């Protein structure tokens, strides 16, 4: 158990920070701890949390995805066309939106794996294309979303926000897939050392495609959820999701060098970011000072996460 805790120290620290921040947020929120406050918090956290999981998959295999936000925006726009009408057409629409997400991820993956283009360049370019398509489809925010479904997915059941339930279900499913299947373990293997993975007989290229398409799939989930919360399709929401998703995975202890971290960490990181900005909103600080404090808290959190450096007794470890 202790080794397990040590190996997941980054997640543990992040979780602790989240608890502290959340307590502070509830304490200063004018309405205090109520289903309403928690549901709003959970809904917004889920949006970024899903985007962070999408980012996690790419970072896990040593990539970085600058198109996460664009995929969220594109799938959100597509959802605003297809997520209404009869239950059957909504279900088909859902499949279509997810397919769009997977297709976006696959495009990234193919360019990285077979085109041998670096992930950062690939996703910078494809991200532009995805947002461009979103803009062409819907130049200004609009469209309609089935309101019954939106209500069902964004309110609370027995005091528990539905979004939190959705997020937990997604996380549990992903954890089983990542830790108990050969594909999941293979993803960690490829991220840890591509060469070793190849020599071990893993299908490195195929696994990377899986990582990128999973990223697209989860980004599409985020896009769908954005539609549920906002009830429109907005092509301009991308950029903040991209950068925050990267900040979230870093906060949650996912190593940008690949092979380390979990979707739980990514989600905790996302919730921390969301809580910080909500905290700022109610703290009475002048709005213009908020970005500064958000940045400061982010920097402090990262510095705390790096405290382990001082425990290292052999300097060689610092450069590994």
């Amino acid at each position, binding site marked *: 158990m202790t080794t397990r805790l040590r190996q997941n120290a980054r997640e543990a620290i992040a979780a602790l920070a989240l608890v502290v921040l959340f307590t502070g947020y509830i304490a200063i929120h004018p309405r205090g701890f109520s289903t309403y406050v928690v549901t709003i918090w959970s809904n917004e956290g889920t949006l970024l949390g899903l985007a962070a999981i999408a980012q996690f998959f790419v970072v896990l295999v040593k990539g970085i995805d600058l198109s996460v936000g664009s995929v969220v925006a594109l799938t959100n726009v597509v959802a605003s066309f297809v997520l209404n009408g009869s239950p059957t057409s909504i279900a088909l629409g859902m499949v279509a939106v997810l397919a769009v997400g997977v297709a976006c991820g696959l495009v990234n993956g193919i360019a990285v794996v077979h085109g041998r283009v670096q992930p950062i360049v690939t996703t910078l370019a494809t991200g532009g294309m995805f947002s461009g398509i979103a803009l062409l489809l819907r130049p200004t925010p609009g469209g309609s979303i089935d309101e019954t479904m939106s209500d069902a997915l964004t309110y609370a059941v027995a005091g528990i926000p539905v979004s939190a339930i959705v997020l937990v279900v997604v996380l549990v499913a992903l954890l*089983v897939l990542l830790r108990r*299947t*050969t594909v999941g*373990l293979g993803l960690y*293997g490829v991220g840890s050392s591509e060469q070793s993975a190849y020599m*071990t*007989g893993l299908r490195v290229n195929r696994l990377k495609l899986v990582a990128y398409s999973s990223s697209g799939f989860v980004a599409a989930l985020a896009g769908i959820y954005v539609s549920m919360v906002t009830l429109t399709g907005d092509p301009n929401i991308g950029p903040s999701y991209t950068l925050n998703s990267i900040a979230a995975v870093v906060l949650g202890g996912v190593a940008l060098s690949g092979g380390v971290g979990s979707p739980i960490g990514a989600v905790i990181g996302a919730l921390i970011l969301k809580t910080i900005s909500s905290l700022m909103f109610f703290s009475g600080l002048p709005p213009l000072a908020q970005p500064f404090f958000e940045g400061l808290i982010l920097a402090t959190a990262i510095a705390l996460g790096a405290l382990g450096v001082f425990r290292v*007794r*052999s*300097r060689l470890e610092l450069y590994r």
Partner: protein
Amino acid sequence: MADRYVELKSVSKSYGGVPALTKVDFRCEPGRVHAILGENGAGKSTLMKLLAGVIQPDSGTISIGGQTVRFSSPRDAAKQGTVCMFQELSLMPHLSVGDNIVLAAPRTRMGLVERGVYQEAREALDLVGARSIPLGARVSGLSLSERQLVEIAKAVFRKPKLLILDEATSALTSELVETVFGVLRMLKAQGVAILFISHRMHEVDAIADRISVFRNGRHIETFDVGARTTDQIVGLMIGRSLEELFPPRRPPVPDTTPAVLDVSDVSWQSQLVNVSLAARAGEIVGLGGLDAQGQQQIMHAVFGVLRGVTGRIELNGKRLNGLKPPRLKQSDIGLALVPEDRKTEGLIPSMSVAQNMRLAALGRAPFGLLDLNGNSDARLRQLIERLALTYGSLEDPVATLSGGNQQKVVLAKWLVLSPKCLLLMDPTRGIDLGTKAQIYRLLTDLAAEGMAVILQSTDYEELIHLCDRVYVFYRGSVAKELKGDQLSADALIAASMNVHLHAGARA
């Protein structure tokens, strides 16, 4: 199964026009251990990679049990029962030991990895003598020798029909090598064909049934173990005899010579306990012992890599405690360390040969400006000649050189600074005999020129034949100092296992 399992017919392979293997005919049979000997560049690694599916032959055929095969990847080869344990370890550092082993040959039920498989992984680890390594440990936290054991366990776990071991035991101590050999004998009895590459002749003698010698990409000769003397085998490999491997003994350095490096009462964590040792100018001092008894840590402690070291470390009367490598390498101190792992600690593989050689000297130029045509380049050229470095162009990435030549580059990068004291961590691990002989001669010459050389080694032969004195480490402290006539394989092994007390009682 017929009577031959793997057969190569007239196989050739070249890289960018440079032939690595030329018309090789070779076969190995089930239930036998077949050793492949040859210098670096002889084509051993190319042969292994062909069999393991990493590369494909330009011409010729590879067949298994009479069936011609063509592997497009290691995965392909593994499906046919060919498992290769490469010198460059194929473990994924951030995964646990158990996951690493299980991923090599996973079994699943309803998409999930079966839990029972981890039990089998545990058994494979126990079998190769790695009882102390937990399944849940991350590979990145293991020592080099532990990783080799995991790698061997992983290979065994895959139940190979042809097992290829490429310098698989290079970081293991003799006891562990014996355990691993026990496993190999068991696999052999089960009918596994084993190809064994090692530069340690006594290991080849101990385990192999047949020996094939390769030279310059050609298969020179195959014979049963015992059919040739060691000298003849070395002759086949390099055209040189064993006596020539080690330079003649030098006269001992008088005890009155003051010490260059003086280490006293050094402790660190629980891994170093009151270690005292000294090296005089002109001496080659060996550090031996079982794996991880503190020999590596004392080198790191002296070179300023460890934090919180207590005790006294002095070089020519100057106190070194608390100083870090950038300071220690300056000419007024003059310390240099050739690290254990040349790929990650010794070299920057993607940088060119010339850049790597200049790397250590960078901090010495004023303001870090490069003295482009100054005397450091002239010194480099001298060193290249002195080390007999074989290379295509100095602008090639250093990763393109053979292991032995890479190690020469590491040596050159430090020697260009003319250190007063040279620390070497297992510098000949996984290096061919020819290059070993060159490095031995170089170290002897450096000592004769007045350098104090400290050589940590896992190879008893070089501790015995090359060193003036040997400190044997046991559980973080110096268990015994051996010199002169005391230096023998028996004495070293006894001291390593800390059973020297009985001998002491007799005296």
